[in-house]
Structures are given as C-alpha cells and as structure tokens.
C-alpha cells in the first residue's frame, strides 16, 4: 500500500536524520557509566561553563523580550508606512551566519575596531569577555520573540485594548491587564525558543569568546574543548545536558501549543489576516 510506503519512508528519514544523532549523544555520554558522567558534568570547568551559559541567557532573553513586546505593540496595534520593511529588518539576524555575527562585534569593539581605542583607554573589556558573548547572543536570538508576538498581536487586533481605553484605563494598565494575558502563551513560546538558542549558540560565541577556560567558555564551547582533549565521553556528557535542554524546550513548546492553538503552525494565518473560506 502506498500509504504504508509513505509512512515508512517518512519515519525512516526522520529516524536516520533526527533520532540517531540524538541517541548518539546519550549513548556516547554514558559510555563510561553514570559515575564518569556525573564527574564530567560537575567538574569545575564544566560547571563554570554552565554558569556562564545561564548568565548569558538570563541577560539576553529579557533584553530581547522587552524588545519583542515593544516591536509587536508598535507593529501589531498601529498602522504606519514602512511596516513591512521594519518586519524584514527585524528578521535580518536570521539571514546572518553566526560567524559573521561574532565578527561584527570584533570589528566594533575589538582593540582595532571602531571603539577599540576608547575601550582600551577606559579599561573596559567587551570582546573576549562576557559582555561580548552577551552581545553576540543577543544579536543571534534577536528576532525570536518579536516573530512570535507580531502575528499574534496582529491576529488579536485592537478590540480588547480599545474597550479598556474607553473604560478609562491608562496605557500601562491596558498593557498589563489586557494585552499581556492575551499574549502570555505566545510570550512564553518565544522565550522558550529564544532561550534554547541563547544557550546553544556556538559559532558567534566562538569568534568573540577568547576561549579562556573557566571564564569565557559557554557550554557549547566547553563541549568543543573537551572534544579536543580526547575526553569524548565528557564532551558528550556536557552535550547531553544541552540535548536535555532541547528536549525540555520541545516538550514546553508542545504544551504551549496545546494551550493556545493559535501558536501551532497549522493554525497560523497569513500575515494580512485573510483566511480562505471552505467551499
């Protein structure tokens, strides 16, 4: 039956290209047993990498969150010229290779960059230090939250807020009491994706990091270091932490889609809000 053939093909393809790599991570991580696994993830350098990763995400995600909400408010609730140009600009970081994303901050904040002289004189370290890593991560994860919220706010329209205004609410009250509850699942969704990418970013951070062990290595970079020290089980052990984070992200994503079906790609409508009527 062609139906079975198609299903089998699909499952085989997914199994080979998606499932096997995931399995490989966990199998290699546990190749030397749970004891070695535990040692690998609690070792001081690994732990420093975990802390740095968490710190970077804790800064990058809220920054992009505030931006995402502001941009979605401006784009979703108002009409103005250049709106679609703005949306395209917000999507720009998606089209930029992570390596280029890292490089641009070296060009600006490196010792020979635009602000190099000024930063050196003031003894402020940006690149090859934590601020540089944060900047590169913010750049790379820039559009995530905005992209979730913009179509959502556009689809939801202004009706609720206008009613609230007519009842005498101030702008802030409008936002906190009316808009936020409406978009909370979309917000969480965007935060989840933004967070996953922040913690997992490799290319951009690799260029600006300086690879100082224990200080400027995030978890993905630490995985690379362990890999380069013949410590494959440890490398996969730390990688498995990131893989677990990915699985948690996927689970969270599905829960949120269940809560607010509008988030599901299947239910997403074209940006101008039109909808094909069934015949």
């Amino acid at each position, binding site marked *: 039956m062609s139906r079975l053939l198609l299903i089998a093909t699909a499952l085989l393809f997914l199994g080979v290209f998606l499932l096997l790599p995931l399995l490989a991570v966990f199998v290699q991580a546990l190749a030397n047993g749970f004891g070695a696994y535990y040692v690998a993830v609690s070792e001081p350098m690994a732990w420093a990498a975990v802390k740095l990763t968490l710190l970077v995400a804790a800064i990058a995600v809220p920054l992009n969150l505030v931006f995402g909400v502001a941009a979605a408010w401006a784009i979703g609730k108002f009409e103005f010229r250049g709106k679609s140009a703005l949306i395209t600009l917000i999507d720009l970081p998606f089209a930029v290779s992570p390596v280029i994303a890292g490089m641009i901050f070296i060009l600006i904040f490196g010792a020979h960059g635009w602000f190099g002289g000024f930063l050196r004189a003031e003894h402020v370290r940006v690149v090859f230090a934590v601020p540089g890593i944060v900047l590169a991560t913010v750049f790379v994860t820039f559009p995530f939250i905005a992209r979730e919220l913009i179509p959502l706010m556009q689809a939801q329209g202004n009706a609720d807020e206008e009613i609230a205004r007519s009842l005498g609410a101030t702008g802030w009250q409008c936002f906190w009491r009316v808009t936020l509850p409406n978009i909370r699942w979309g917000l969480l969704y965007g935060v989840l994706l933004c967070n996953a990418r922040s913690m997992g970013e490799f290319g951009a951070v690799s260029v600006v990091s300086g*690879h100082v*062990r224990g200080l400027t290595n995030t978890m993905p970079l630490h995985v690379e270091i362990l890999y380069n020290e013949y410590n494959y089980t440890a490398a996969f052990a730390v990688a498995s932490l990131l893989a677990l984070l990915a699985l948690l992200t996927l689970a969270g994503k599905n829960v949120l889609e269940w809560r607010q079906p509008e988030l599901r790609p299947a239910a997403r409508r074209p940006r101008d809000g039109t909808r094909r009527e069934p015949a």
Partner: protein
Amino acid sequence: MRRPRTILAAALLALGVGLISPLPAATVKLLNVSYDPTREFYEEYNKAFAEHWHSKTGDTIIVNQSHGGSGKQARSVIDGLEADVVTLALAYDIDALAAQGGLIPADWQQRLPNNSAPYTSTIVFLVRKGNPKKIHDWGDLARPGVEVITPSPKTSGGARWNYLAAWAWALRQPGADAATAEAFVKKLYHNVPVLDSGARGATVTFVQRGIGDALLAWENEAFLAVKELGPDKFDIVAPSVSIVAEPPVSVVDQYVDEHGTRAVAEEYLKYLYSAQGQEIAAKHFYRPRDAAVASRYAKQFQEIPLLLTVDAAFGGWSKAQATHFADHGTFDRIYGK
C-alpha cells in the same frame, strides 16, 4: 508593578558585574594564552608554579588558560584578549604581537635564554600499530594510497613546522631544488583528506575518528596521544630529517603593565627554565634545555639523524612565512591548482 522588573534588572546587572570584576587583592590572576597541544602540560605546570609562588611570596595565584591554533591565539591577543603571557608555537606569531599589535617590544626574543624557548620539540609521524603502510620517512607520505593528517599551516603553528620539515627533507634529496621540493610537498598535501585548524584537532581526527595512515605531529603530541589512547594502537616513527621546533614564550608588556602583574608574569616564565619546570616539560614529552634533566629523559625520545633549525634551513621565520604561508606563497600555490 514596575518594581519587580527593576529589581530583577538590578540583580542581573550586579550578577554580571560581579562575574567580570576582579577578585580581592591577595589573589593574583594571570592569563596564559597558549597554543593547542600544551593543555595537559600547563595544567600541571600551573599547579607547580602556584605552590612555588605561594611559598615565595605568600600570595595565591590563579593562572587562566586559553588554547587554540597558534595563529588564531595571536590574533585574539591583538584584537584585545588581555593575555599576561603568551606561550605560542613559533616566534613569528609572537612577532605579530609586536609588529601588528604594538603590545611587546621588537627584541622580545632576547629577554629569556635560548631565544625565549624553554624547551624544544620536533616533528614526528604517528602511525597505526605495526605501521601497516610501511611509512618510514617523508618520501613514503607522498606515495599514492597513503592518507596523511596534518592541520592547516594558515592557522596552526604545528602545521607550519610540519610543512617546513617536509620541505627541508625534500631539499636534501639528490638533485633537489625549490621546484622539486614544491612538487613533493604538493603531492604530500594532496594525500591529506582533512585539514583541521589546530594541532589538537588533527590529532583528534587521526586517533578518534580513525582517518588517515599517518599523522604529522609535534613530538609531544604524538607521545601524549599514545599515552592517552593506547600504546597498543599507535607507533611513533622518527623521520630522517626533521626540524627543531622552538615554541617561544613572552610576557605581553602592555597588558602586564596595565594589570600590574609584570613581576609574577616574568617569574612565571623564568620558572619554566628551572629544574622543576624542565622536569615537568620532559614529563610531557618536550625536549628540555637543561642538560641534567635532558640526560635523565634521553631514552624517552627517538634519535633523529638530522635536526635543522628554521634559521639554518630557511633563513628565519619572516622569510619562511613570506615564501610559504603568506598569500600567494607556496602553500596557496599547491592548493590553487
């Protein structure tokens, strides 16, 4: 309603600042920016030096390490990675700190003994156990059907030593000249399936991923690989001609003066020449300069009939770099076609 957000923001800022700001005065921190294969060596050396410094001055010292391809590390330092000391693979990379970064004086190499190279190494071949492809010398590497692993000379210091050693051997063959040497090296590099950016990456490719019949490696890397991953898996083959690799060290004047760590940094490097420093180097398969330590560890190293220096065979690093590794040099040419 706004309070929780401000508090959160302030907390995050404090956390971030706290993580970047320096530690209290009684602890001194040094940043050692090094090349790829020295990871294990400096782990042990840093502990020994910390004890030495503590017993001498009572201060605690923390040495942070960064490792990567030598050229790449030099670039990072020029771009703003505030290394207190650099311990790189070749003098040319440290020269760049003077020439391009203005971070150290041009005569840095004369400040420490032996051209600022506390130990030496050389280039050997790491092969599979039993040497099934019968690789005994450079000529065998260019045979068809032999796969050679070496990193890229554009980013890895070790790779540049590899390249020059091969070239040096070719020049010593009967009837050789620059053209035949280039032809030989071209054949050799066309037997290379993977070019990693650093020495360690190449070793990983050879030993872990099982690619290649021979790895062109730092001697110390080869010994380390055998020790870590199984003496029953690999053999070390010493070629007939090789190059004396002198990985140099230097303080980075601009940064140690800014950080106020000059005294510690200079002592850190001087200690490499001490009996204990030399002992640790020898344990990690570097050829020590100290005669006493060297004689004790002599059996560990293989005899290489002809060992050449870059100065003797190539007229120095600047010339070698310009001829071979700069844009449009021989390396670009052998890959261009």
